[in-house]
């Protein structure tokens, strides 16, 4: 599977109704392009100067390619995004290209509701595979140690440079080499994690540079309450 995040910094003067239209276009994408899975949006609550996050996934690179060439992508989603599009409401973001994601064996990121936290990591270019694997193992173990942390996945940000077909890099290495995706039951659970005594919470509070030989050079975080289209099979009430 391919897990993917698009992160948008909005023009300060973007009309509210157009922002809502972009949110809806992202949230509803799977209705028009069935290959788009687990589509949800959220408003970033961190200090990072980006506002809107669209999280979604694809079963395969082939499914991703069908999204890329679908009219809904070109005509509706891109209407608000491309630099020369007259209805553009985004600006070039300070976090670098606002596209992050990774390959995974299955939808281990999946949660019906809650708070998503995305930690963007820049690892030392000279880090060995062993160091990176050890880091991933430690971060992913957090889901078993931290109450109400439902998801913890750390992976290389392959989508940052392979955004055309999901596999082949079309540009240089991304600014954020890895992503650490987390899921919490709610904002209180995230807050409890931050102030808790787990190893990774202590690392985050103390600074990444003092941990594991400084393999993590920089980090930035986004977090948001997940807003997705209601599941029509669940009915009401």
């Amino acid at each position: 599977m391919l897990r993917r995040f698009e992160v948008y910094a909005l023009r300060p003067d973007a009309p509210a109704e157009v922002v809502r239209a972009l949110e809806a276009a992202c949230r509803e994408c799977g209705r028009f392009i069935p290959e788009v899975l687990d589509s949800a949006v959220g408003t970033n609550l961190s200090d990072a100067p980006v506002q809107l996050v669209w999280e979604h996934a694809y079963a395969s690179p082939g499914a991703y390619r069908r999204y890329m060439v679908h009219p809904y992508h070109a005509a509706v989603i891109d209407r608000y995004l491309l630099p020369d599009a007259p209805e553009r409401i985004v600006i070039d973001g300070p976090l670098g290209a606002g596209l992050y994601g990774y390959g995974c064996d299955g939808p281990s990121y999946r949660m019906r509701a809650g708070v998503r936290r995305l930690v963007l990591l820049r690892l030392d270019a000279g880090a060995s595979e062993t160091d990176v694997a050890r880091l991933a193992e430690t971060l992913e173990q957090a889901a078993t140690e931290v109450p109400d942390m439902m998801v913890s996945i750390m992976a290389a940000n392959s989508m940052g440079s392979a955004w055309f077909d999901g596999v082949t890099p079309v540009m240089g290495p991304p600014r954020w080499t890895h992503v650490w995706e987390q899921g919490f039951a709610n904002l209180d659970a995230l807050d409890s994690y931050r102030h808790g005594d787990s190893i990774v919470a202590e690392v985050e509070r103390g600074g990444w540079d003092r941990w594991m030989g400084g393999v993590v050079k920089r980090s930035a975080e986004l977090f948001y309450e997940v807003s997705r289209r209601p599941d029509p099979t669940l009915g009401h009430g």
Partner: protein
Amino acid sequence: MRLVDTVEVETERVEDYLQVIRTLGMAVMGDAGASFVSCATTSSAIGEHVYIEVTWSFDDHVQWDEIRKNLVLDPRYHEYGATVASLRLGGTRRFFTPTTFSPAR
């Protein structure tokens, strides 16, 4: 198929906008693989802002995706986008597929 941008521009900025299309726009879009079809304006003598309609063509959405990739990877495209954004008041972009009875394909 056609990509049609219709933008609203203040009368005194029409020539600047057209100049950007004529130079940077045609170079960037052409190099990316799009074909220039037409550029037309409404009258500047009717007391309204001017609308400029610029039309590009390509085979289908598969080719557009390739053009889009080329555009995003071209630094001139980002300069082009910022420049036209600074000159227009608003507008729309729509994709059109010619009907079977259309003489222009």
